[in-house]
């Protein structure tokens, strides 16, 4: 019996009807990116994008222009054509075709553009509503988005004065405007609300960026009267028409997880889905709902989330548990050419992605860009949805999984963690602990896997890694094998009874327990989920003058920052063996450090920092490597760190960089060591 089956297999192999091993999928293969050419003389720094009824793409730029692009799809091999429709507006960060007109948001107002004489150029720039400004550069304005009731929605950034502050009225707020442009203040607590979209229920979701009071970026549902976290906007909550009841003094600054604070501060809204910073993205900037007119794989109804810093798009699946939105974020596509800001569906179901990175570093090094994300039609092997269960998760896959790997606990790695809620910029990962799997049930069609965990932690982010899973056909790994589920509410219901039948095979990959440990006690423990370990050699961070320096340092250096991710000194020449006292002060509006590296090692160390995983911030994003010579800690805006080091004896060019993920490409300098 066995022999004939074997012979049959050989025969089938020979005929090519049986494939032994399929190729592992790649993002490039499944979701090709097409670059839309931009004429050299046009600085298409995309701030807003909208399609017009005739399928032309209107693009608003940060230099205040509106360009209309014909044939962005390059149909029939034809180049797209650009024409200038409007100019001169003040940093446009939103454009929308609403009820027959083009509306946009610039720093000071909502503007409507009309071409009255039909010559192809706007000649009416109508101010629909204007708000006060302080003159602070950080007071950006976004929108307008149409809500389900026909109101226009705008969000206003906080100003930045070393921390986020609401320097002029309504900054830090989401505002609604009725069809006759009466103002209805809607919600506050916003810091840098760079994007918003409606989901299929017509509910508003917005994208927040890591910063003060914001441990990590996120996607958050917004309802009327919500306070979404940053207290600066609360100075206006007493204004007539404000639906927000909280005042600044109601908000504790303890560093507890936000969900804990929210239990005793009614009105404080926590993120629907956290986007773990540096792992999934750093600057959440664009949201696109996957509506029926999109064609991007089997994910309709989910949200695509763009990132300005990492030039990538993530995918968010949302569900409602006990009336609260929550869900999971997975990577979707990396490798865009610049910093992503806006995404729109084209008429062919492809996704137009508009980008800019002037003033901020992005992984995609181009200053600006426009690309089209397409779907090859090849079914990706992905986790389609993750649904919370009373005792774990149900993972749904786009194609059947191989049962053997699915039932092996060793194929998975799970942990829970959260961030601090406080005025300090960002947050390290805290309270991280490993989860273990008690039971695994694979559905008969092999498309669903139910994991029963040792426990679920309400309010926490649940890291789900599935490196060992394989597809049933072809035995390929997942295209994206890790995701983060935000468990705002644990669902009620029957927990699974543990039996022999659902007992997992193998042992779960254990991430070491991280609870309550200081980083310098970590020894040589591997970073949680990171391929690169964090530095534990404190000899590279000497903060007191060495006793042997009886005459003090030979050289004292004061190093600062300049806007746009720069050190204010980039070329320092020192003699070999010089004893240096260096004070690095971060006067920028984001986190930075100073890391001195071996010759020709700046990029290598910067790349290693990108791979440090959730533990990255705990180690100040300084990787464990002999390529690092000296470093400062990761500094909040306004903070400084003083370190002592001796210049190497060997002459050469020693690069220094900031290793905060992605910064190293632009934030760098060098110490030239001479004899």
């Amino acid at each position: 019996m066995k022999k004939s089956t074997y012979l049959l297999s050989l025969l089938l192999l020979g005929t090519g009807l049986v494939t032994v091993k399929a190729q592992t999928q790649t993002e490039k293969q499944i979701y090709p990116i097409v670059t839309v050419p931009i004429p050299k003389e046009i600085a298409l720094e995309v701030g807003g994008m909208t399609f017009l009824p005739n399928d032309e793409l209107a693009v608003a730029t940060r230099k205040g222009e509106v360009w209309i692009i014909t044939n962005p799809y390059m149909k029939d091999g034809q180049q797209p054509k650009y024409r200038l429709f409007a100019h001169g507006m003040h940093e446009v960060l939103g454009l929308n075709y609403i009820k027959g007109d083009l509306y946009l948001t610039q720093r000071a107002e909502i503007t409507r553009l009309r071409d009255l004489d039909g010559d192809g150029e706007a000649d009416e720039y109508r101010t629909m509503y204007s708000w006060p400004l302080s003159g602070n550069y950080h007071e950006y304005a976004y929108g307008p988005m149409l809500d389900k009731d026909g109101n226009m929605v705008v969000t206003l950034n906080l100003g930045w004065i070393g921390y986020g502050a609401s320097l002029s009225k309504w900054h830090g707020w989401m505002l609604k405007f009725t069809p006759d442009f009466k103002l209805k203040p809607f919600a506050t607590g916003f810091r840098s609300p760079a994007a918003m979209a409606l989901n299929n229920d017509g509910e508003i979701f917005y994208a927040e960026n890591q910063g003060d009071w914001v441990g990590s970026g996120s996607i958050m549902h917004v309802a009327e009267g919500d306070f979404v976290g940053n207290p600066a906007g609360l100075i206006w909550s007493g204004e007539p028409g404000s639906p927000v009841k909280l005042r600044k003094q109601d908000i504790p600054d303890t560093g507890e997880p936000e969900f804990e604070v929210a239990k005793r501060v009614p009105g404080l809204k926590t993120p629907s889905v956290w986007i773990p910073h540096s792992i999934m993205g750093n600057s959440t900037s664009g949201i696109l709902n996957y509506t029926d007119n999109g064609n991007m794989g089997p994910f309709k109804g989910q949200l695509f989330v763009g990132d300005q810093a990492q030039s990538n798009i993530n995918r968010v699946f949302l569900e409602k548990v006990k009336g609260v939105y929550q869900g999971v974020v997975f990577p979707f596509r990396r490798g865009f050419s610049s910093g992503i800001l806006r995404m729109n569906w084209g008429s062919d179901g492809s996704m137009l992605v508009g980008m800019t990175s002037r003033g901020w570093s992005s992984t995609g090094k181009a200053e600006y860009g426009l690309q089209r994300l397409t779907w090859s039609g090849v079914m990706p092997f992905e986790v389609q949805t993750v649904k919370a269960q009373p005792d774990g998760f149900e993972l749904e896959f786009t194609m059947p999984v191989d049962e053997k790997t699915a039932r092996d606990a060793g194929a998975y790695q799970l942990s829970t963690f959260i961030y601090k809620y406080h005025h300090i910029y960002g947050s390290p990962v805290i309270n991280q602990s490993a989860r273990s799997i008690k039971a695994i049930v694979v559905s008969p069609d092999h498309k669903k896997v139910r994991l029963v965990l040792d426990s679920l932690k309400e309010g926490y982010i649940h890291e789900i890694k599935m490196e060992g899973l394989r597809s049933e056909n072809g035995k390929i790994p997942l295209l994206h094998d890790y995701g983060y589920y935000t468990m705002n509410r644990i669902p009620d219901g029957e927990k699974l009874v543990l039996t022999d039948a659902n007992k997992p095979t193998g042992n779960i990959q254990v991430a070491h327990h991280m609870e309550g440990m200081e980083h310098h006690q970590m020894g040589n423990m591997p970073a949680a989920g990171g391929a690169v370990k964090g530095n534990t050699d404190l000899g590279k961070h000497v903060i007191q003058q060495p006793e042997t320096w009886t005459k003090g340092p030979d050289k004292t250096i004061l190093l600062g920052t300049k806007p746009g991710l720069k050190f204010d000194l980039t070329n320092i020449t020192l003699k070999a063996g010089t004893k240096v006292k260096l004070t690095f002060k971060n006067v920028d509006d984001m986190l930075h450090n100073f890391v001195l590296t071996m010759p020709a090692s700046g990029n290598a160390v910067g790349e290693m920092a990108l791979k440090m995983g959730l533990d990255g911030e705990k180690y100040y994003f300084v990787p464990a490597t002999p390529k690092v010579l000296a470093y400062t800690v990761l500094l909040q805006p306004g903070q400084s760190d003083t370190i002592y080091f001796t210049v190497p004896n060997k002459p050469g060019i020693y690069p220094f960089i900031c290793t905060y993920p992605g910064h190293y490409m632009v934030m760098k300098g060098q110490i030239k060591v001479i004899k």
Partner: protein
Amino acid sequence: MMCCLALLTSCAAYSMAQSVSPYVINAANKPYLLRSFLMFEGKKRTHVISVGTPEKVNYAYDLKQGALLEVWRGDFIDVREMWEDRGEPQLAKPLGTVLPLSAAPALAALADKDAVWPDSIAFDDLQNQGYVLDKSKMPTFLYAANGADVSDKITVLNGGAALSRTISINNSKQPLYCRVAVGQNIEAHKNNSYVVGDKAYTIKVADGAKAFIRKTQNGKELLVLLANATDSLTYSITW
């Protein structure tokens, strides 16, 4: 000692590299309109539009005050502080010699002929409505304030020798005054002309306008009365 000198040299080299050239914008064959922040009389104005013309006559206008702030000839404007990196100041800088005029609103409802001209109008008391471009793409600014609908158009006159300004009011609930000029000294001359300051500039008011000079604590003002619900004033500035 060597190290200190070396460090100083490298610092100097770096600061020289930082003295970058301006990012100049000029109108080509059409006017260039630019919304920006602008410094005027030591204060950062946030709702300003500057207009550069092919005739190389330029002006800056405060949209929330209805104020013609300043005029200048030659190259239009430097936007380096807006469009380099993040552009933290977001300030546009007029190029060339600027003739400052006034930050105060051009229109006011005065209780009587001697009431003090307001320095400014409150943000919520002036609804700016944007602007409409004519065939040559020059703007007419529109706003509502003091109970009237206002249009304010400033265009190039005589190939660039002067600017012409026409302020029209509609549906006005009361008589309004327009302050055309303010200075230490204003002298009336023939044909409705007025010389302001030390011959800094000349104003010519259209025939029939109810113009008069009044003395104030700080000097003189040239006012025009707009008595009717629908009324208008045209004057030119030559400098």
